[in-house]
């Protein structure tokens, strides 16, 4: 009796793992395809029926990094995205603390106003933003992208951090107050360390959004002194060579892999953060 129960439990576990393995394969197939695409010659990317086991070559990788300004795209993406996240954190942490902890008139309205900036259709503000940066002489400059990304993501960064700060028990902050800390000290020494998961989550989200941003990047940057990977990717779809699929795969992987690794490293923070954000009012 006990033996048959053990066998049934064992087979049910095997069944579960098989199902999960199928699901994982289904989810990862596009990534695998992207990797194989980046490792095949250009002719092998366009044959019909497709070749599932190609002749591996680093031709696309060489072509992308030697004949295209990949290093410039990478540098611009890094500067603009990381810079925008730093600006966001600098502004969002005190804003989130204020929204989470202080009582003042219009607090909820201000909170909603911050969030509402995320609801604007980007195309509606594209032209004003273009003119604004033109007047600031910042066109085709990564600093302009940094500022735009920061502005786009500020609301979500603020709200994610706020949702974590609300969770910090008030008594702990009161204990710090009794111990002699003032508001800034409480924020830096108590609330912020206890909301670090929220800060990490918000930073990753902002980073992903910044790296993915296309519309404003295309609008503001027109040479490789400001173009990022997302716009760079589009460069491989036109021109005299037509669509260069294996090069596109290389650029896509270069964009995707660092974010993927980063997300894996902090996935515990991230999943908790997204869940919390979903359940908060």
């Amino acid at each position: 009796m006990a033996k048959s129960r053990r066998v049934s439990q064992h087979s049910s576990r095997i069944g579960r793992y098989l199902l999960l393995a199928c699901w994982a394969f289904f989810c990862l197939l596009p990534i695998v395809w992207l990797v194989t695409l980046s490792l095949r010659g250009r002719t092998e990317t366009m044959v019909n029926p497709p070749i599932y086991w190609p002749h591996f070559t680093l031709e696309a990788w060489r072509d992308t990094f030697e004949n295209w300004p990949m290093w410039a795209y990478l540098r611009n993406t890094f500067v603009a995205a990381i810079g925008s996240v730093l600006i966001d954190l600098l502004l969002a942490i005190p804003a989130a603390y204020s929204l989470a902890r202080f009582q003042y008139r219009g607090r909820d309205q201000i909170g909603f106003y911050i969030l509402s900036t995320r609801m604007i259709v980007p195309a509606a503000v594209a032209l004003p933003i273009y003119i604004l940066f033109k007047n600031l002489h910042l066109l085709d400059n990564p600093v302009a992208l940094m500022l735009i990304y920061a502005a786009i993501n500020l609301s979500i960064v603020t709200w994610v951090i706020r949702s974590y700060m609300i969770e910090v028990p008030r008594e702990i902050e009161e204990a710090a107050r009794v111990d002699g800390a003032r508001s800034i000290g409480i924020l830096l020494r108590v609330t912020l360390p206890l909301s670090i998961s929220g800060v990490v989550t918000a930073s990753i989200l902002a980073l992903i959004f910044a790296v993915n941003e296309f519309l404003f990047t295309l609008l503001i940057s027109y040479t490789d002194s400001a173009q990022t990977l997302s716009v760079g990717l589009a460069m491989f779809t036109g021109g005299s060579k037509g669509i260069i699929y294996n090069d596109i795969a290389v650029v896509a992987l270069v964009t995707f892999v660092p974010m993927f690794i980063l997300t894996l490293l902090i996935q515990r923070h991230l999943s908790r953060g997204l869940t919390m954000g979903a359940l908060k009012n």
Partner: protein
Amino acid sequence: MAVVKLENVCRYFGSTPAVLDFNLETREGEFVVLVGPSGCGKSTTLRMIAGLEEMDSGTLSFDGRPMQDVPVQDREIAMVFQSYALYPHRNVYDNLAFALKLRRFPKAEIEKRVRHAAQTLDIEPLLLRKPRELSGGQRQRVALGRAIVREPDVFLMDEPLSNLDAKLRVTMRAEIAKLHRRIGVTTFYVTHDQVEAMTMGDRIVVMNGGVIQQIATPLALYDEPVNSYVAGFIGNPPMNFLDADVSEDGGRIRGPGFDFELEPSLQQRLSSRNQHEVTIGFRPEHLKPRTDDALPTMGILQGTIELVEQMGSTTDIRLTVDGHSLIAELPRDQTLQIKDAVELGLLAGRLHVFDRDSGDRLNVAVSEIQPSSVRSRQSNGKLASV
């Protein structure tokens, strides 16, 4: 050590009064317990002393220095919270040292004070652990350590033992009392547990509905409660209450299942008030079996046993007297059975008489009222006669 003085302190939440006209002056190094049911305003009062809650009116002073406008950070207080409120991301050492670091104490001094506090509370081996690695009792000690390391003028404790199990609570209760004796800092201790209040406090402030009911020493509260609320709140098992009528000549007091002869002093006091409809109260331990003639009684109560609880040293019985439930705490007795008829005598001089409407205690003659030593107010804000 400081003399803490609160005068006419009020706090409202919206239009609801949380604390009304609170007046208290401590002695240096006194252990004052604020006790009452949930929502009675005791924690709000403590938080006002800490500065975590604003006062709507009234004054607060430490050693004569006005405190109501001094921010929390600048008051020389330390507080132990109900949830301990330890910093979860810091180890025990850093939890203890936090306040000292903020005050820019020299490193050597911080080390000395933290080590001393840790030795006092027996938590030295835990100094490098994070709060999540500690048991409830250990966290409690760390919270106390964080408070004593400051060497504050005033100690504030907000139900610090309520998260501990019953056994640990008794141990920690004794330790806090010992600690107070050793360091001698003026302490305010909030609890809803009357046993904690009775065992720890030099003086107890009983509160209800935001209003002080009585301020007195534990035994004075027990023996001479100013009203039926205090009488019912203090004591375990609680005091028994019955409605009663005083005879026309004032010599007897009658009610369901009893007819007591009043002692002359009580007769005199009641007749001076000309009050006939009253509520009487008596403590369960002041009832004794009728067969016990060693102590004089003022009358007999006849009832039927509903429940027998063997407590080990005593036998508690719940009985009904003419449809009213009472509790009696008797010497250990294994012969008592449910449904038995029982006759109990009430010890002479142990009867409390209360005004049936206001609940004020009537045992004290009008001429004996000393409002400066014992203050009492009803929840409607009127001063109660004591």
